[in-house]
């Protein structure tokens, strides 16, 4: 009797497989891109990103598509799990007829897809994940990355920090790879520019479980001249509030990685920490050029302002369109070859996918947080070109190793 129920599992598995096979095949006349993301787990970031993609798709297809065909994105949710993402990537490429893959915010998911891309020879454009490893230590022939990496953004802030007299630095970063990379990059870049700096405290709160009061106390105890912050999301809100209440930021320079992005700044409302020097996206302050045009188009389309994710999503489509047009076909190898030294015109200006490490030269906006009409924004900002903030070519080559 039990064996029968055991059997049911096998039959059930087969039935599921058959049902899955039976899903309707999509019409074949579009060019399909497989987009994998954590739409639910990271809803605040993935939502605007998807809107940015859809806006760009509407524009591209209204203008006749790519290679004479409409461009289509297939959006899939990986639940934030690398293993799921790999499975979905296989499905998109082998069953749904996607010509290449893109997406992900979490670095570990990006790394998992990148490894699959190299193994199965699928082209993968990592749009949002920041980990340096994606284009350096674990870089491979088939993976490209759009956004400026952790190292690039930390180096931009280090450049600003080196201009001040601050000597004693404290760091606070979530206790995981992104936080550690960011602190290491900031230290490396700042020490190179200003060898006499000291790092007097390093705090490592667990991601999204910060004990902000205790962290603020610990930082205060070290009496630093300046603080480098990598916390974000809910952790950032708690840190800003506890630190502000306890006077931690008074008379200190604070450098915040990504803290100026609307995703993180907006929820802080009128408690946005004025005076912090941050990387971010000052969408409301951009007054001319393609950057302004993008903001206007986006606001007109969605009646909401763009986030950094919207910008990245939009630029993802632009990059893919440019690659397809340069390749002149949807063949994987042709697309891959096209990405090398591919120039793309975007809202942040002209960028290029570097042939040496497949990293795009998209930069970041660096500025100071200020309050306007009860909301945080960035003033005195400059756009720093990503290509100026990477490691020297020899070091990049060494990191990427000989194999790939």
């Amino acid at each position, binding site marked *: 009797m039990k064996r029968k129920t055991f059997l049911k599992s096998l039959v059930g598995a087969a039935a599921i497989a058959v049902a*899955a096979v039976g899903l309707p095949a999509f019409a074949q006349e579009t060019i399909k891109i497989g987009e994998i993301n954590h739409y*639910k787990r990271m*809803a605040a970031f993935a939502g605007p990103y998807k809107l940015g993609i859809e806006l760009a798709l509407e524009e591209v297809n209204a203008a006749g598509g790519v290679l004479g065909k409409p461009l289509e994105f297939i959006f899939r949710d990986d639940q934030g799990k690398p293993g799921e993402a790999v499975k979905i990537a296989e499905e998109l490429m082998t069953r749904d007829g996607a010509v290449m893959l893109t997406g992900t915010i979490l670095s570990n998911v990006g*790394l998992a897809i990148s490894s699959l891309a190299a193994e199965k020879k699928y082209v993968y454009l990592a749009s949002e994940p920041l980990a340096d490893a994606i284009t350096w230590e*674990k870089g491979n022939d088939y993976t490209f990355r759009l956004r400026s990496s952790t190292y690039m953004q930390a180096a931009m802030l280090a450049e600003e920090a080196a201009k001040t007299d601050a000597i004693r630095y404290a760091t606070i970063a979530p206790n995981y790879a992104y936080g550690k990379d960011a602190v290491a990059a900031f230290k490396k870049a700042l020490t190179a520019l200003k060898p006499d700096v000291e790092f007097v405290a390093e705090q490592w709160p667990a991601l999204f479980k910060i004990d902000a009061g205790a962290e603020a106390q610990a930082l205060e105890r070290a009496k630093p001249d300046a603080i480098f912050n990598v916390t974000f999301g809910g952790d950032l809100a708690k840190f800003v*509030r506890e630190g502000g209440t306890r006077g931690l930021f008074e008379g200190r320079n604070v450098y915040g990685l990504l803290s100026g992005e609307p995703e993180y700044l907006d*929820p802080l409302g009128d408690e946005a920490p004025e005076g912090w020097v941050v990387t971010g996206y000052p969408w409301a302050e951009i007054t001319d050029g393609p950057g302004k045009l993008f903001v206007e188009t986006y606001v007109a389309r969605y009646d909401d302002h763009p986030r950094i994710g919207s910008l990245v999503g939009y630029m993802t489509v632009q990059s893919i369109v440019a690659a397809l047009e340069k390749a002149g076909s949807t063949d994987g190898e042709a697309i891959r070859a096209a990405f090398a030294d591919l120039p793309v015109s975007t809202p942040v200006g002209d960028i290029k996918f570097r042939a040496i490490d497949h990293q795009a030269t998209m930069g970041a906006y660096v500025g100071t947080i200020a309050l306007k009409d009860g909301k945080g924004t960035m003033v005195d900002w400059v756009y720093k070109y990503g290509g100026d903030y990477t490691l020297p070519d020899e070091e990049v080559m060494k990191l990427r190793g000989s194999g790939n």
Partner: protein
Amino acid sequence: MGFFIAQILTGLANASALFMVASGLSLIFGVTRIVNFAHGSFYMLGAYVGYSFMQVLPGAWGFWTSILLAGLVVGVIGIIVEMLVLRPVYKAPELFQLVATFGVILVIQDLALLVWGADDVLGPRAPGLKGIIRIMGEPVPKYDLALIALTPFVAFALWWLITKTRMGILVRAATQDREMVGALGVNQAWLFTGVFFLGCALAGLGGAVQLPKGGADLLMDFNILSAIFVVVVIGGMGSLPGAYVAAVLISVLNVFGVNYLPQSTLALMFVVMVVVLIFRPFGLFGREEVAGEHGQVGEPERPIKPAGQTARMIVLAGLGALAVLPLLGDSFTLVLLTDIAIFCLFAASLHFLLGLGGLVSFGHAAYFGGGAYAAALLVTYAGTPMELALILAPLAAGLTAIIFGWVCLRLTGVYFAMLTLAFAQLLWSLVFQWGDLTGGDDGLVDIWPSEWASGTTTFYYLAMVLCIGGIIMLRHTAHSPFGYALRAARDSQRQAEATGINTKHVQWVAFGFAGAMAGIAGGLFVFSKGSIFPNELEIARSFDALIVVFLGGVKTLAGGVVGGAALEGAKDYITRFEYWRLLLGLLIIFVVIVAPDGIAGTLRKWAESIGLMKREDQA
């Protein structure tokens, strides 16, 4: 000195919300024996509901009223959940209800996203308590002091409710012996509903009261879950003073950890829990569990027997179908089935422990992930070929299980479950923190099968052979003398001991064996995905397995496999929809209600009732 005091005050303030949420969980468990995984969701709802009230109610009066209202509203939501979802399944096997609460988590996650949107919400500051007070020169936020003052009032009110009121007497009686309370004519259903209201209201209060120290976001439900379980277990399940002491202990230690050992943030809590449980197996203030609660709730289990001739033929036919599938299906079907098979083996190994051994492991991901990491580390650092790595993975996982099992098996019941969870978390934090070796959360990548097995079809066959082989081996073990001894130890330890079975030894071996089987699944997983990340060791992974074992049916031999195949298959389909968490949550709740014996168990009953299968007693 001032700094020292300021730290302790910070710890006490942090303990406040933690205590409220944890005491709710403790109450619910104490009376209903439900391990309420959804408790974090009620905490999250409290934060959001409190925030919404604070937007409309002005001033200090409005602020505190909002907190109370948040508690009330969440309590009412708790009642709705209890009546709609949990009442139908009280008669189900012990711990089965946790599957239902898991469904509730998913539903609440998507509903909260629908109602409050994706953006994080910053909590309003408490009117009149925005600044700081300097104590010996150290700044202490006024609201922290308010929380420190408030908590004893909540604790006192609870104490009064529990010790001085009739409801409290009933609650205490039910905590000790709920059957007796029922026999004395107390309407258990309403008692349970009342306790659920109180517990959820406390969670809601906790969520609302922490608003000025942070806010509300969609990840806070899972983020607080491990902390409140740790507090409840350290304090002793069902003990309110224990919950308070444990909340303070954890919070204060955490503050000192942050200051003196900043890297400790991931592991500290679990280290404390392991230490406490080793010296006080039932927590600081807990009592030994009433013997015989486990594996014996609900109708008695049927004896298992080997499959008959026809059943074997049908299984063979099923295997044949799987064998010829590569000729018919596309390559993704094979990828999907490989995934499902790996998950089924993982689930079956937990089912072996849980169903046959009565050993509820909440940390089974440790062995799945352990095996996976063993294989990945061997490949990365020693260039081990896949074949050898697949042999060593179960050995490593089995060894891990034997080590963990040695400590965990000193405890029983829910404390055992919690200790396995703590060990899994320790392993997770080790892997997460030791970035130089394990790559931290950037994981280990580029671990692909050997050349001969790298094709999708070949790997499919390899995975099928190992997974089905493993599942059959687990089944075979169930029918062996060892399986009988294991079930004897589960059903009556004393009688088993009297017949000469060394029950602890048998359970220990079973723990190691199940761990090794999970290790095979883990090893295959690495090579099928090409990479491994710490999330395969996370609590969520352990829960996945736990859910499918219950969903499939604890009391049937095929439960793990049926549940695994059903849930993985359903997930693959459902995650294509926008609100997939809502759908999946509702589906789980639906299955739980219509199939309280699990899918396999209920199908069997249906088959019997319409005469497709012979009843056990006639056989």
